[in-house]
């Protein structure tokens, strides 16, 4: 990253530096044909070149793409990885999933901040560096992890943090940091039908072309394949309705946003099974009559981008992508779009908005993407794993696939297992496997709780480990996080609540405000001001948000919390200060600023008794 930091903000219009910056922005704009739908890509590239997105930069981009400036600013301010204020030459973001916390990320972050003399969230005074937390980066099997200028570093240790502080102070570019820090393991622990596929690149695609669109759709139908992105929608129905929808063009989107805390299986498919994914996308394109596809790659997986683009180029050379694939007259090409730190962009209509250069806010549905998707054209959005499985089915047939798993959940499922297990990593199991069998395989003898769909799904207690992983019993997108008996489930709930408050897109009232209320209530408990009343409030938020929210995020954001409240009540009760109502406001604490300013800390500068008369007055807090 080439960054000129602080003095950018003081730039004198018309200066030489100004015209250099303008030229750079113009080059980037031209590369994207000044097309506003490419705004998220444009903003990332300009930020890479300029260090941050200044007001003048946003104006220049708006003018370049011919959009109202306010809309450009709106997009820039939506994504966590874009900054509209300077944040330093080095931007360090600690992955803050509960699994990172269990591996000690908070001590590491505190230590780095101390060594660099800065406060989390603020740039160091010399404008060199900022340190902050970010949502799960998908490295839960090899955490604690962080992003250094958006490049993934895994397996952090106190020694690595020491050395990192040195490297930053000596201004060593991130690209020159020890290369083993950037190493990402696959950690595949159990292989089954998909991970042991044994196919050559393009083999599945050739098989699909042999079957023809109708034959192929027939096999997908026979396979009873259901989407692996979470909802479990029948893939044949999705593809057929997309194919039948009228449009100028049809599109295939591979959803590689993988934002659910605790999932990392798509990362492994992209890293080591990319040809199966690309074959799957081509096959989907062949089935629905599309000639263009997008991979929406989460910003946290930036480190994969160049590698994946190289592989796409190789496939084009080998006749496995692009014009006239395998010499069979079918043309299909793929473009990769990088996200910029927003969990909601995994939701398919928000993803499409993002692909069109806008903030990732879910659309009103109907109409659904299969009829009105990307650029209002028929679009099928599928998870990475679904597409790889479609490739497998194209070769081996639907009957074969249906023989694996259960009647309602056919085939295998990739599980990302992390937390308190001896062998974290990827486990491919046929659907129907019990939670206990998964725990056994991963080495988890002393388990208290398992979350089965990341932060957005159920939390099971030990008496439920005999249940089956399947859409009809315990549905999962693949995130399995394991908590042993030493863990405080209250802290798990609090981490999840802050995750949702941070990731709510803000479009609808119940989720925008409700997630913030829940995070505040849990903080109130953590600060020893909780009462049973606050627990009832969380139940109330659950009842409101589930049903009234606009999309799946708000509808699922309280499920794990509700489960934990019901199944691990003592973890919450322990935090209750009194059986009666307690205000969230601590007057004495609020006076600390005044004490600091006046340099006083004597008893006279403190309030002795708790003035609960001020019920309901909470000072405004920094957002999580």
């Amino acid at each position: 990253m080439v960054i000129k930091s602080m003095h950018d903000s003081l730039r004198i219009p018309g200066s030489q530096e100004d015209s250099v910056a303008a030229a750079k922005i113009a080059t980037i704009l031209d590369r994207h044909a000044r097309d506003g739908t490419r705004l998220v890509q444009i903003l990332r590239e300009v930020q890479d070149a300029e260090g941050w997105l200044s007001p003048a930069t946003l104006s220049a981009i708006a003018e370049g793409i011919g959009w109202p400036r306010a809309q450009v600013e709106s997009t820039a301010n939506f994504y966590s990885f874009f900054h509209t204020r300077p944040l330093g030459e080095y931007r360090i973001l600690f992955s803050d999933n509960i699994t990172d916390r269990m591996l000690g990320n908070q001590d590491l972050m505190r230590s780095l901040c101390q060594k660099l003399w800065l406060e989390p969230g603020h740039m160091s005074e010399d404008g060199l560096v900022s340190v902050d937390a970010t949502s799960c980066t998908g490295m839960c099997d090899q955490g604690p992890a962080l992003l250094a200028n958006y490049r993934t570093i895994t397996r952090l240790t106190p020694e690595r943090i020491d050395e990192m502080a040195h490297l930053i102070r000596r201004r060593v570019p991130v690209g020159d940091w020890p290369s083993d820090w950037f190493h990402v393991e696959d950690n595949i622990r159990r292989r089954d039908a998909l991970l042991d596929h044994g196919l050559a690149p393009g083999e599945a695609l050739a098989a699909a072309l042999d079957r023809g669109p109708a034959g192929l759709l027939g096999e997908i139908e026979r396979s009873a394949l259901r989407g692996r992105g979470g909802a479990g929608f029948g893939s044949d129905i999705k593809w057929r309705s997309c194919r039948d929808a009228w449009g100028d063009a049809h599109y295939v989107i591979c959803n590689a946003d993988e934002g659910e805390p605790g999932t990392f299986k798509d990362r492994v498919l992209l890293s080591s099974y990319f040809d199966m994914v690309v074959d799957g996308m081509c096959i989907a394109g062949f089935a629905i009559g599309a000639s263009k596809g997008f991979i929406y790659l989460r910003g946290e997986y930036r480190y994969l981008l160049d590698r994946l683009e190289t592989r796409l180029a190789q496939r084009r050379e080998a006749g496995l992508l692009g014009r006239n694939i395998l010499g069979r007259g079918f043309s299909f090409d793929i473009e990769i779009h990088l996200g910029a730190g927003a969990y909601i962009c995994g939701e398919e209509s928000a993803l499409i908005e993002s692909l069109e250069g806008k903030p990732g806010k879910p659309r009103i549905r109907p109409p659904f993407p299969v009829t009105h998707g990307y650029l209002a054209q028929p679009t099928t959005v599928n998870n990475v794993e679904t597409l790889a499985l479609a490739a497998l089915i194209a070769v081996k047939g639907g009957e074969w696939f249906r023989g694996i798993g259960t009647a309602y959940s056919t085939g295998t499922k990739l599980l990302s297992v992390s937390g308190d297990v001896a062998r974290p990593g990827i486990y491919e199991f046929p659907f129907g496997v019990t939670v206990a069998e998964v725990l056994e395989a991963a080495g988890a003898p002393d388990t208290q709780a398992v979350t089965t769909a990341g932060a957005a799904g159920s939390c099971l207690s030990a008496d439920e480990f005999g249940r089956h992983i399947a859409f009809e019993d315990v549905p999962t997108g693949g995130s399995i996080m394991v908590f042993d008996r030493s863990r405080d489930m209250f802290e798990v709930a609090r981490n999840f609540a802050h995750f949702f408050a941070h990731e709510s897109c803000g479009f609808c009232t119940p989720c925008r405000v409700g997630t913030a209320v829940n995070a505040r209530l849990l903080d109130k408990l953590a600060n020893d001001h909780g009462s049973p009343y606050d627990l009832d409030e969380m139940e109330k938020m659950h009842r409101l948000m589930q049903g009234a929210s606009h999309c799946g995020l708000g509808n699922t954001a309280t499920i794990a919390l509700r489960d934990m409240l019901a199944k691990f009540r003592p973890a919450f009760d322990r935090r209750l200060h009194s059986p009666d109502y307690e205000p969230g406001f601590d007057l004495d604490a609020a006076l600390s600023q005044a004490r600091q300013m006046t340099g006083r800390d004597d008893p006279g500068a403190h309030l002795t008794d708790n003035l609960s008369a001020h019920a309901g007055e909470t000072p405004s807090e920094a957002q999580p």
Partner: protein
Amino acid sequence: MNNSFLLDGEDVPFIPGQTVMQAAAAAGKYIPHLCWHPDFTAHGSCKLCTVKIGGRFATACTTRAAAGQEVDNRTEELTAKRRTLLQLLFVEGNHFCPSCEKSGNCVLQATAYEMGMLSPHFDHFYPDRAVDASHPDVLLDFNRCIMCELCVRASREVDGKDVFALSGRGAKSHLIVNSETGRLADTDFAVTDRAAEVCPVGVILKKRVGFAVPIGQRDYDEKPISEKAVGKVADGVKEAG
């Protein structure tokens, strides 16, 4: 099949293509709403219009009316949910109604009365939002913004200007204007714009006309919103055809 549905047990006719909200408004029936306005495309964000259709929650402003639908609207369950939504909106911003120029004409306040909301219930967030007094004719007091985007839609769809946009994410969502300085004076906004009229709360306020109508004689001082709104809206919908 006859083109009508049941709203709280009463027959409501509809023209194919109309939403439940449009049909109800045309029939003079009040479904609580904040972000919906008959003149603009539906937004579906405030969720005040949440109804139950065939036992499932849905927003009346975005759901197409269909023959035979059974829609629950003013039930105790839905009123309770709407009250909670209103409370969330009140604590999210800074609403000190007694000193607000919009008091009595404010849709948020009037809807809160209608839903029997007696207190904000939750701890206030007290967000720090600046006021923009730069424009010669109009004041923006963002403290009261409920993110309904009516001004955004009015400016885009009617004025053809795109003066407003919602920026940020989640609880950090906030309204911005279309200028590099962030000041309304530096946009092409005019007091004659439709966007100057649509704010349901007290954010977009015309200067020099404040408190022209005394509190006590304002829109919702005369009649509750359930009677007032449908009168106005029914006319609008009929005119719009």
